[in-house]
């Protein structure tokens, strides 16, 4: 963990424990969301409906975790009036769990698309490129959660570039789907389903970027939303 971010060391050890618990829960929630993503891709790869059921079950757990962590953040705000790094931890956590929960929802949406495809025997041709997009997104999510766990801002900035790669892959998938629709108007309905799934995967990338921005805010106290990577680097070098 980055040494700039302190969780422990308060005069009140109970406060240390409360903050520590929140951090652990976020990591736990991140683990659940990552498993959801794995299962979704397994379903996509294997046409196996058991995976989809697992994704749904995990989503219910993720939703509960979001509410639980939010409640803990509210309690700390009310009882402890956190300031400085502690305040930023609570704000960043509250925002990040929302992003994690949405990643879970998007993964579930993709899983439902897979079920629909299985039920309607949608041609595998329609899925071309979707798995690759999913793998890239999964990798970004995995690395994002690592950055969150270790509070590494430099890696966060580096990882932000990956979003562009995901956006490019998404564009390629969309172009392929357009071609697929042009070939036969009967393909349109299937292709639109797949397009929504691709959109969900692309959105997962965006939520990962939000979490990375939250890490930078937490560690550096800099709000880097709606800021280009060059500008973020400049801001971070100024704050060094």
């Amino acid at each position, binding site marked *: 963990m980055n040494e700039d971010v*302190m969780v422990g*060391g*308060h*005069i*009140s050890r109970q*406060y240390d424990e409360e903050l520590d618990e929140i951090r652990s829960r976020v990591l736990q929630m991140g683990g659940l969301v990552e498993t959801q993503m794995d299962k979704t891709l397994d379903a996509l790869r294997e046409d196996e409906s058991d995976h989809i059921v697992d994704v749904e079950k995990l989503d219910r757990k993720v939703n509960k975790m979001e509410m639980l962590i939010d409640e803990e953040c509210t309690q700390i705000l009310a009882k*402890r*009036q*956190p*300031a*400085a*790094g*502690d*305040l*930023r931890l609570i704000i960043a956590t509250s925002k990040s769990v929302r992003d994690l929960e949405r990643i879970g929802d998007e993964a579930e949406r993709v899983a439902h698309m897979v079920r629909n495809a299985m039920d309607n025997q949608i041609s595998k041709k329609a899925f071309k490129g979707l798995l690759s997009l999913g793998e890239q997104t999964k990798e970004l999510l995995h690395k994002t959660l690592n950055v969150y766990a270790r509070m590494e801002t430099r890696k966060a900035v580096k990882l932000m570039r990956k979003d562009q790669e995901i956006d490019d892959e998404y564009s390629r998938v969309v172009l392929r789907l357009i071609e697929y629709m042009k070939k036969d108007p009967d393909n349109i309905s299937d292709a639109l389903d797949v397009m929504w799934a691709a959109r969900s995967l692309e959105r997962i990338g965006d939520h990962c970027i939000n979490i990375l921005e939250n890490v930078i805010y937490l560690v*550096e*106290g800099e709000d880097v939303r709606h800021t280009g990577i060059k500008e973020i680097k400049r801001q971070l070098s100024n704050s060094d």
Partner: protein
Amino acid sequence: MLDTAKETYQTAGEPFLDEPKMRVRNADVFYADKQAIFDVNIDIGKNEVISMIGPSGCGKSTFLRCLNRMNDTIDICRVTGELFLEDQDIYDRSIDVVELRARVGMVFQKPNPFPKSIYENVAYGARIHGLTDTKVELDELIEKSLHRCGLWNEVKDRLEEPATGLSGGQQQRLCIARAIAVNPEVILMDEPCSALDPIATATVEELIHELSENFTICIVTHSMQQAARVSSRTAYFHLGKLIEVNDTSKVFTNPEHQLTEEYITGRIG
């Protein structure tokens, strides 16, 4: 001066301002041969509320008391450095300390009304400084001062009653009315709410906010939430050194100095 080499200290943040109301440079304070304040450099802006925070014994009250020479009342206390109120060196030999304290008033931790009537408490300063010529003028000044402190409606029908009969919060607002009746430029407040309940505290904090339109206010407080609520700038003291001065919003979300962070997050007390 002691024979030891003078220690210098670089404060983090932005301690200096353009056209400050008060300017302090290289201020050291000693109690006999024990140094309590080390090389404090800070500007206090016109009509700003600046709060001084820090653990007990950090020197914040000692520093506050330098600003109107209240430390003169302590025999063993010695202040060195430059302390200016606008262009005037407040430690210059020619300075009339009574006049200085009219320009830089003070409100203390515990409400300390004189054992006189409400009216006489507010009239006292105006009388000794000869601020009014007639009884009508004095009445107007007292009404205005009590109005400004939000006390007028509460006490207008009992101005001749003893001030000690007022509640704690009312007494503190009366002390503030007494301070502003002599039309000071700066008001120093040394933990003005620590003896008050939360409602009275909120009333005094609201008053501080309103007074900042016309006065410069320096407040020493143990309550970090109070500093966050009432001040636009915050100064953090630690073991006699001025560690950081910054906008309050910055200090409470992203302080520059590690010690400030540790204090406001409750890691050092």
